[in-house]
């Protein structure tokens, strides 16, 4: 029995498709010929649901999209609505938003390292990644009350202020982070098995990446220096001094390194924001019943997974007429067939892991 041109199904229930994703894979003995992702198993009709909710009621729903990094969804949506309103958010609120978004980026990347390592076989790193993430989830819980569905932002600002105790706690967690990352790195970065599994796998060139709309760390690992925080700054990101890691290999290993470096850069941003936190209001004047005159806007941010954007169209009532979300995972997933060409079946899991997809985002 030979395996020429056999179609295998990495079905919706699979331990390492990160969510309910179905992959139809055609293999030739071990080599991947064609791979077709089938999505929609987690579709909840969010965009239609939002048309019947007020602008403020949509914000907690956005938590459920990219459920690993809830605050970044909140941020993208509230920034889009504020742009539509033409509202100026106070500086202190913007800095607190930056702090929350970067903490969420840390948490998202630490969870990603865990998932990725677990797929490749290093089962302990899953636990270490999640343990390191706990500190930051506890901070978010102390701030807003939720760890996964945070609802940490509001239209017009942030709901709570950062008191001194919380600031001290954030600093302490940031101080402890480098040691923990070092442990994960000792287990992975120089490990020969890890490098065998990730170097030279899932290659995508810069031109192909741009053509397919790849964004986020995967794009930066292919050599394209594009980060929305630097190129189209939002929410006072221009006040902070940080590097954007760019590597040129375009393989899984480089995506891994880029994300680890982003973790380090995020700690720098949070420290700067804490040091320079201005005094002031934390919420702009927003009417209780928010009606926005007719208009449309698209605004995107650099979420941990890529470019996360919201298109909002208003029609003068208190409910949006149409909200469309551009999810990074959906667009990134489309480059999966390109990345898998020439690789073996066992690599699919690694490549999928390096793309860092979340089905909540893809299926909405």
């Amino acid at each position, binding site marked *: 029995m030979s395996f020429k041109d056999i179609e295998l199904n990495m079905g919706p229930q699979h331990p390492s498709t990160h969510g309910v994703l179905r992959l139809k894979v055609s293999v030739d003995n071990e080599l991947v010929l064609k791979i077709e992702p089938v999505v929609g198993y987690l579709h909840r009709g969010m965009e239609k649901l939002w048309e019947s909710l007020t602008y403020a009621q949509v914000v907690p729903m956005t938590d459920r999209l990219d459920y690993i990094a809830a605050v970044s969804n909140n941020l993208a949506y509230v920034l889009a609505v504020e742009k539509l309103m033409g509202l100026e958010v106070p500086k202190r609120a913007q800095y607190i938003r930056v702090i929350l978004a970067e903490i969420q980026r840390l948490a998202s990347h630490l969870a990603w390292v865990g998932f990725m390592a677990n797929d490749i076989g290093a089962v302990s790193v899953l*636990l270490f990644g999640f343990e390191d993430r706990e500190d930051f989830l506890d901070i978010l819980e102390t701030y807003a009350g939720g760890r996964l569905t945070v609802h940490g932002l509001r239209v017009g600002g942030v709901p709570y202020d950062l008191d001194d105790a919380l600031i001290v706690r954030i600093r302490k967690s940031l101080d402890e982070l480098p040691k923990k990352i070092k442990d994960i790195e000792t287990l992975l970065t120089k490990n020969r098995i890890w490098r065998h599994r990730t170097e030279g796998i899932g290659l995508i060139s810069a031109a192909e990446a741009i053509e397919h709309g790849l964004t986020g760390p995967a794009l930066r690992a292919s050599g394209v220096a594009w980060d929305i925080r630097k190129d189209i700054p939002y929410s006072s990101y221009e006040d902070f001094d940080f590097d954007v890691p760019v590597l040129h290999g375009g393989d899984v290993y480089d995506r891994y390194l880029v994300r680890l470096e982003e973790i380090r850069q995020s700690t720098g941003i949070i420290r700067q924001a804490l040091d320079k936190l201005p005094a002031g209001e934390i919420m702009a004047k927003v009417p209780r019943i928010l009606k926005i005159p007719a208009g449309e806007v698209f605004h995107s941010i650099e979420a941990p997974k890529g470019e996360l954007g919201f298109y909002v169209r208003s029609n003068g009532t208190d409910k949006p007429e149409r909200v469309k979300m551009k999810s990074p995972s959906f667009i990134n997933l489309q480059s999966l067939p390109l990345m898998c060409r020439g690789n073996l079946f066992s690599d699919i899991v690694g490549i999928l892991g390096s793309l860092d997809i979340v089905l909540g985002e893809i299926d909405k």
Partner: protein
Amino acid sequence: MTNTGFVFDVLIPVGKIVAVILYPLLMTIVMIWLERRVVALMQKRLGPNRVGFQGILQPFADAFKLFLKEDIMQDQADPLLFKVAPVMVMFSSLLAFCFVPLGEPIRIGTYRLTLWIAQSPVGLLLVLGLSSISVFGVIFGGWASNSKYPLMGALRSVVQILSYEIPIGLTALSVVFFARSIDLVEIVNHQSRAKIWFGFMLPVSFVVFWISAIAETNRAPFDLPEAESELVAGYHTEYSGMKFAFFYIAEYAHMVLVSSLVVLMFFGGWLAPFPNVPALAFLKVIPGFFWYLIKIMFFLYLYVWIRATLPRYRFDELIRLAWKWLIPLSLVNFLVAALLWYIL
């Protein structure tokens, strides 16, 4: 009057057979507990610790659960092969234990009780050969499942086992060369006479043997054929209930077998360490059987430690490692060992 002939000729061999069957099963139970507890502790969490003292009854809970599971077999599965496969794998592991000595002979009065079922002048060869029969079980299991995933897993597993048999054989050969005998008991006795264990004389042999042994038993980092995230569970995907338990136990029994071989060949079997140091002579008070157990437990612990730490090798790298690195290395090692033997 007791019929001493009856005792010596029937009861003791039967007792030994029962012991040989129970020994890997008991070690499997310990292994299941060890694996879950140690992996958990290495991941900074407590493992199962509520079922019995420190969770020691957890394996029994798992076994009980497997007993109660429904025994599923598809219509299109080949019934005979499907049922034979787990039995075959278990059978080969247990059979190989017949030739594995567990300790030095004990004197009870005038009788010398030997702690093995059979001693053969080619013991090591028999053990290696008998444990290779498990390959058939794997093929049967994969084929009889009549499903793509298990078949792929079975084929990979077979290639892996066959490829890694060669370094095992070659490194065992270097030990045999030094000990001038293929008899496992003789190998241990030779280490006793030479006052130094082969693990220290031939470290490269030990490391190559150990790596190949991990690959033989389909354990991390060489567990691609049964990796959950890749092929669901390889050749035993379609098995449930007691048949799956058989595969499970057979894998652990194979691990114990291989650890026993490592201990016997490279670490002195049942010998106490530091025999030359008179200050540590009290170590000899502990019977050989216990030293043997302690050493095997160390290697089982090492299995689990490695599993908790390392990622998985991809299949082609696995095979490349065997053919491009381990086999040439073991050949060179054998030559060097032979040269050393003649020089020294």
